[in-house]
């Protein structure tokens, strides 16, 4: 059967499934809309968190990015998994014990101040918006690539689907849709990976396969290092970035992960404290399946690419090369007119440009898999993008309806009105996100990675100290968050958009890139908070009791 039909069937079926789930599990109270009525079983919550977490970028781009950066790609692998250890050990159980609806709820109550709450809402909105614009764009790109519609139409279709099930279902609806989306996306990612591993190394498990030898008896990674040296690229298994920068970027991504409101809020949805710990464990296990496979896929496709194209006549390349060349994701320019493909590090001689996304997208064709598998990959990529967008949407809408309207502007709002406000703000947020998806400001790609820095610089210290220090007070926490997020915004706009005089790599403070600067800003946040709290009054009796209480086990 024709590929296009398969794709429409796979995408159509998966969308019907999501919408059906949303209708069955729709929310009828604010408790269900914000935190699924605290009734989600830990395994389901783990899957939902994993789907929420893994975006279109994790699904499509990450393996490719690792493939081109080798060891340096490790910052994403460790950074985007290690944060769950922090979540499980330092945040999730205590926030669940606290038992309210949102992250600003915790900050506002723990620091007994609406100023703190307001700052937290501001940070939550900035972090979530930088993130969601990239997701809507991702939905558009996936649609346009697989279904051959233009990106605008793609964004609009995605917007309508998300709008329907997030607005109707609230947290309860999106949780169970995300469970389904996790199953679709992990199946779609693993299937081609397993086939390629079998093809290249004869091993069914990609994680082991990329450490074994190919048919010629040479270890795959040694071969790849050799090829890289030969072509003038940096050796695959060692890094090009400075150790300090790798350290700071990894830390920023880890801490940022633990500080992202749409991830934290998932742990509010379970029944008890011990379930919050369990969900974090399941979530990381489900994420690790993809994250340990991605570096294997990266090695297989990198080796495959080099061996297929390097110094081969352009005319005799396999069919997938032509097909992806037509999309512009691969481009070939025969500079020396010899008809062969020179793929080398030196930009003067190099004739081949390859988009990172190819490494995952072209996998099924490289491995010669049937059309229905490509169709499932399309459904998987969409599942990844939609699930993340929906999770972010919920954070934005609850920040507006709960934290701003209910807690700050109009406390006497009835539950029914609050629920309407929540749904309306979700609609507003989707529209805005769709607008940015269709007209992406040039900085979208750059800012998604920086959302982590912003989260690390603002939330993480305030939450951790709120739990682990009884002396931390509102003056310290507010000053820390404000200084942290402003410093991070300053550094990222300076070096990414050229504001405040701009600057290049050699102007970086201590050689730390903007991606890694979140760790630095986080340290500054800690120092500012602690210093100021020493000179201002400690929180009163009632707050001390609140802290005592969140540290106690479940039934106390």
């Amino acid at each position, binding site marked *: 059967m024709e590929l296009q039909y398969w794709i429409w069937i796979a995408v159509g079926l998966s969308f019907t499934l999501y919408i059906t789930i949303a209708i069955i599990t729709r929310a009828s109270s604010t408790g269900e809309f914000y935190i699924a009525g605290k009734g989600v079983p830990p395994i389901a919550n783990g899957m939902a968190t994993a789907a929420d977490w893994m975006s279109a970028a994790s699904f499509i781009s990450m393996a490719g990015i*690792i493939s081109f950066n080798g*060891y340096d*790609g*490790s910052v994403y*692998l*460790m950074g985007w*998994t*290690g944060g*769950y*250890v922090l979540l*499980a*050990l*330092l945040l999730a*159980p205590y926030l669940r014990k606290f038992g309210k609806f949102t992250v600003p709820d915790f900050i506002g109550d723990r620091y007994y101040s609406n100023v703190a709450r307001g700052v937290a809402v501001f940070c939550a909105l900035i972090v979530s918006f930088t993130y969601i614009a990239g997701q809507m764009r991702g939905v558009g790109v996936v649609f346009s690539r697989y279904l051959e519609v233009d990106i605008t139409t793609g964004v609009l279709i995605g917007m309508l689907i998300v709008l329907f099930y997030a607005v109707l279902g609230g947290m309860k609806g999106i949780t169970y849709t995300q469970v389904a989306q996790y199953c679709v996306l992990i199946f779609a990612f693993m299937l081609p990976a397993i086939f390629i591993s079998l093809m290249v190394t004869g091993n069914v498990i990609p*994680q082991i396969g*990329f*450490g*074994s*030898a190919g048919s010629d008896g040479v*270890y*795959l*990674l*040694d071969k790849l290092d050799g090829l890289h040296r030969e072509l003038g690229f940096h050796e695959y*298994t*060692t*890094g090009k970035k400075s*150790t300090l920068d*790798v*350290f700071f970027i*990894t*830390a920023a991504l*880890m801490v940022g992960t633990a500080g992202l409101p749409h991830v934290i809020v998932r742990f509010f949805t379970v029944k008890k404290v*011990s379930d919050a*710990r*369990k969900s*974090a*464990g399941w979530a*990381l*296990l489900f994420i*690790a399946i993809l*994250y*340990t496979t991605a*570096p294997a896929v990266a090695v297989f496709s990198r080796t495959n690419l080099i061996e297929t194209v390097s110094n081969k006549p352009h005319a005799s390349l396999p069919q997938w090369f032509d097909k992806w060349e037509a999309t512009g994701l691969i481009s070939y320019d025969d500079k020396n007119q010899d008809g062969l493909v020179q793929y080398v590090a030196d930009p003067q001689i190099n004739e081949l440009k390859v988009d990172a996304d190819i490494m995952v997208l072209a996998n099924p064709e490289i491995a010669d898999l049937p059309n229905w598998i490509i169709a499932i990959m399309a459904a998987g990529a969409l599942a990844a993008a939609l699930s993340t967008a929906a999770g972010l949407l919920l954070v934005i809408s609850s920040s507006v309806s709960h934290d701003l309207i209910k807690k700050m502007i109009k406390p006497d709002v009835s539950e029914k009105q609050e629920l309407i406000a929540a749904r309306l703000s979700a609609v507003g947020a989707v529209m805005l996100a769709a607008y940015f998806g269709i007209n992406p400001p040039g900085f979208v790609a750059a800012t998604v990675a920086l959302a982590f820095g912003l989260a690390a610089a603002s939330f993480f210290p305030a939450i951790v100290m709120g739990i682990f220090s009884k002396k931390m007070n509102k003056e310290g926490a507010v000053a820390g968050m404000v200084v942290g997020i402003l410093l991070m915004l300053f550094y990222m706009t300076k070096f990414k958009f050229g504001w405040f005089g701009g600057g290049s790599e050699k102007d970086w403070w201590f050689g730390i890139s903007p991606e890694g600067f979140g760790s630095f800003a986080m340290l500054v946040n800690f120092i500012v908070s602690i210093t100021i709290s020493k000179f201002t009054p400690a929180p009163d009796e009632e707050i001390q009791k609140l802290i*005592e209480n969140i*540290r*106690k*086990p*479940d*039934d106390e």
Partner: protein
Amino acid sequence: MDNKNNYWKTNLKYLVILLTIWFTVSFGFGILLAERLNQIQMGGFKLGFWFAQQGAIYVFVILIFVYIYLMNRLDQKFKNQK
């Protein structure tokens, strides 16, 4: 009161031990010591590279499940004492 303090102190002790391991496998083996560990070969992997792209992630998963186990045991003990 003693019970409660013990509960919190034991929790903090677990946190320190587990986070030390967390830091060692990722920032230690995967980054700071990666180059030195790369001298050691494990199958087709250089060890530092393996920790950075595989090993650290496996250890992360194990750490969380160990913490779940320890805390469930502690919760139980705490309940029995009362």
